[in-house]
């Protein structure tokens, strides 16, 4: 408790005023969260009432036609699939890099690349989107054709083409974007492993990998889970990179290489231009769903981090 213990005097004007101002500023955070919820709901309700289909199960998105037909099923599916692909690819690689930087590389390399990773986390998503849209699509298309040729019997790689602007491209671009986030956070966690634990493992004759498995990973588990969930939160809400890389076909499919796919956020960015009144409300309704999902994911990540902090602080 920084600087408590001051005699409290009544009518201490400036003091009272200043603390009230800071209280109001702090309360602004809660006000904003509540306001987001209220305004989104208020604008979503008229559109939801005009919807002639079931908002949860309908896959089409035609809010501007008469009567309006739209539902979130297909775009929510797309958000889920791209995020899952992103995490499946990014998490193992990110943990590998984090371990490399914390326990394998020498100090100078670790410092330099740690710095570079922080810089990469700052690169705007539209840049990754542009890169995926123009450059990365070529190798992904080649890879898709190859997968289709040899593994076309799997439902994921089925289809007759065209390939490229697909869930796989979107998911891989997302993976590259969340990689720096997960790496940076889990590297921090791995670096905090008590040296005593590591040295104890080594002194018992453990190899470096055994030391990592018995001392570093168990200590860092909660932190890693939290960093993965923060990466998931970022992937779920990512807009522009997916707006540039997906193929915009609303369907629920497990096929990841055919042109197609859509996500909640990308649908908002791409559908906003031609949206009328109902269309705008419909997009706001889908944004509300996205807000609720990311809120839950982020809150869960924070709870894990807080628990861990209590745990490590009491251990120290």
């Amino acid at each position, binding site marked *: 408790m920084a600087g408590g213990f001051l005699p409290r005097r009544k009518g201490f004007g400036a003091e009272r005023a200043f603390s009230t101002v800071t209280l109001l500023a702090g309360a602004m955070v809660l006000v904003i969260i509540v306001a987001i919820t209220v305004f989104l709901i208020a604008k979503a309700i008229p559109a939801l009432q005009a919807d002639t289909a079931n908002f949860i199960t309908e896959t089409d998105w035609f809010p501007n036609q008469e009567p309006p037909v739209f539902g979130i099923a297909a775009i929510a599916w797309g958000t889920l699939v791209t995020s899952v692909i992103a995490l499946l690819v990014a998490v193992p*690689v990110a943990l590998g890099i984090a371990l490399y930087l914390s326990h394998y590389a020498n100090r100078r390399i670790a410092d330099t690349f740690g710095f570079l990773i922080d810089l990469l986390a700052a690169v705007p998503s539209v840049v990754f989107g542009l890169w995926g849209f123009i450059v990365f699509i070529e190798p992904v298309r080649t890879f898709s054709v190859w997968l289709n040729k040899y593994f076309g019997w799997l439902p994921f790689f089925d289809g007759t083409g065209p390939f490229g602007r697909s869930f796989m491209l979107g998911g891989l671009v997302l993976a590259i974007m969340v990689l720096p986030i997960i790496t940076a956070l889990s590297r921090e966690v791995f670096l905090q492993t008590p040296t005593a634990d590591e040295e104890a493992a080594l002194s018992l004759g453990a190899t470096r990998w055994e030391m990592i498995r018995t001392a570093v990973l168990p200590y860092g588990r909660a932190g890693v889970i939290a960093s993965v969930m923060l990466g998931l939160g970022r992937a779920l809400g990512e807009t522009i990179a997916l707006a540039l890389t997906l193929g915009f076909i609303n369907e629920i499919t497990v096929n990841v290489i055919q042109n197609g796919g859509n996500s909640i956020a990308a649908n908002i960015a791409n559908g906003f231009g031609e949206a009328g009144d109902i269309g705008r409300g419909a997009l706001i309704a889908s944004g509300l769903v996205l807000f609720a999902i990311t809120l839950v994911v982020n809150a869960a990540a924070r709870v894990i981090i807080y628990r861990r902090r209590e745990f490590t602080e009491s251990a120290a």
Partner: protein
Amino acid sequence: MMTDPAVAPPGQGPGLRGRRTPFVAYVGLAVVALGVAAAICYGTGVGGWVLMLVMGLVLFLAGVYAVVSRLEGRRAGRDRTWSVLIHCAFVLALVPLVSVVWTLISKGSERFDLNFFTTSLNNIGARDPDGGAVHAIIGTLEQVAIATVITVPLGILAAIYIVEYGRGRFATLIRFFVDVMTGIPSIVAGLFILSFWVLIVSPVYNNGQPSFSGFAAALALSVLMLPTIVRSTEEMLRLVPAPLREGSYALGVPKWKTILRVVIPTALPGIVTGIMLSIARAAGETAPVLLVAGGSAAVNINPFNNNQSSLSLYVFQQASDASRFAPARAWTAALTLVALVLILTVAAKLFARRNRISR
């Protein structure tokens, strides 16, 4: 676990760490693995050099495990295999990142000329090779500046509340929601300002018509900047040593004056670093600007009325533009944006190093 399998050959005892596999063995394994993979790939025609590398890596891993297990024991074999995998993860991640940087520089330099920074897209048709981004640069600077002016005082005051005044449940609740708020997707912030400012407030001053504006974009960016500024300021305030505060109290200085004259100046370098990082992040946001500023082709100096563009929105719109000159403009704008963001980030990090109380 005293199962050291490196049985010492007669005449020379094992070293402290047992027998080591010579480096030559790894090189040999790598060559053999790549050779076999190349033979399979090109011999049967199932794939090109990428598949060859992947297959070679798998064979190399299997080989390392087998050879090291034989020479040094199974535990060492597992250790070395993981070691190779972890180094591979590092190299693998470098490939796309290097590709991003390389294309950004090589394609972005094409239009990195005076014309790009002095003209807008006004009167630029699909067949015009010229056209610049001066309107977008003005938009980005104005929106980020307004957002900073709104957020910095609010964020610092909120952080002061959390660290210095907040007690009990309410302060914990605010802290928790500040953390949760860092994860709000930028598009949701955009939708919020759209439904709050553009659709409800702006008709009041715009003859009943909803109006896009740069100011609305600044508001959306404020929603995104606020939690990061609060968090970084909070951390910096906590690092200010308690004796500084106590010394000030002992001289009879009231608490609010202590905070403003002693605590804040001490933590200032760190706070500035946090602010610069959040500005860098806000400058790169596209989705909220798209939703509430709308984008435009001409210069619009007035942030309070009518459409405005921003650098990131410019990149997005040029990327989806059909003109064959648009991609070059998009890359140059992307290069400009990344340069801006990275200069801010690097400056912030260097600034942080000068900070005495930071870790």
